């Protein structure tokens, strides 16, 4: 056995060995590069979709329509323009955080706050990511605060 091992010319395979050593790190950097690009693109799309969906929501006449509108605009925008996002992993939420309460709602309300012009809405989107590597975040989310624009209350 020892003699057989001695007969192998190890220096001839040095390039292959060097390549084998360096390949994992090159591949790692390549995948990380793609992952960084994917995350950056998702983040851009998420912010854009968030703005569009928030704008679509605040011009609705009542809370339920606004929440529905926000979800459909967000899903359509994200599905159209990015890769690496789980299509079934897009969720949106619309919450009223400030405004008048108990003055006779002009529509449906959330958190006891009336859906009307002047109320502040917190719009958020969360997306699940389909990653190439097992590192990095599994999901990404963003929020924006906007003012509800409709309907105009009668006492305004």
């Amino acid at each position: 056995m020892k003699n057989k091992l001695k007969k192998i010319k190890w220096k001839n395979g040095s390039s292959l060995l060097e390549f084998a050593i360096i390949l994992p790190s090159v591949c790692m950097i390549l995948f990380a590069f793609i992952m960084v690009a994917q995350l950056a693109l998702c983040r851009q799309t998420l912010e854009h979709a968030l703005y569009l969906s928030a704008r679509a929501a605040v011009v609705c006449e009542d809370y339920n329509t606004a929440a529905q509108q926000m979800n459909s605009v967000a899903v359509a925008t994200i599905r159209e323009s990015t890769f690496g996002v789980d299509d079934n992993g897009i969720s949106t939420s619309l919450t009223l955080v400030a405004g008048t309460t108990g003055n006779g709602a002009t529509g449906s309300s959330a958190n006891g706050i009336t859906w009307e012009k002047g109320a502040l809405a917190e719009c958020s989107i969360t997306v699940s990511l389909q990653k190439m590597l097992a590192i990095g975040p599994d999901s990404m989310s963003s929020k924006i605060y906007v003012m509800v624009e409709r309907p105009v209350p009668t006492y305004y």
Partner: protein
Amino acid sequence: MKKIDWKKGSGVLLLGTLMSILGLFLMILVMEFSNIQYCNTISTTRTDAIADSTAIYAQSYDYMYNQRQAETMSEMLTAYNNSISTKYDIETSISFPEDDVLDLTCVTYVHTYYPQLMGKTLFYIKNDTTVKSVDVYGDIFVVPESMSGHDSLTNSSTGDNVVEGSGEGISSIGD
């Protein structure tokens, strides 16, 4: 200890290491570039959202702006939008060149990922939005001269006339 003879071998290891280091630097640059893009997106979207909300909140029945109301709403929205994340910081200032024109300037700051490498700790993007109050129930919708060149959209179903320009453009929304 045996001396390494670097001239031996095909240099795949050296070349591979060099490529890895170069790739790493490139990745850092891409990350910082995406950070600037993110800052720009945040700045554009938040400026437009705050300016639109402020303009609609402060618009009076004679199509002028109530300056006190506008300041209150823009301050409140800035504070709320700042509370979302520690990744960015938004500063807004509001001015009224005319009674029916509102200027909102938004500066968004983001931290650099590698301050030592980039030579600075913060990036910032400045964004200006101008909103003009328009009487949409008037007989003729006239686009002011300052807005010429921007796209004009007319929603026939609601009768609303909207002229919008994002970023550093001019936006006018009739409510």
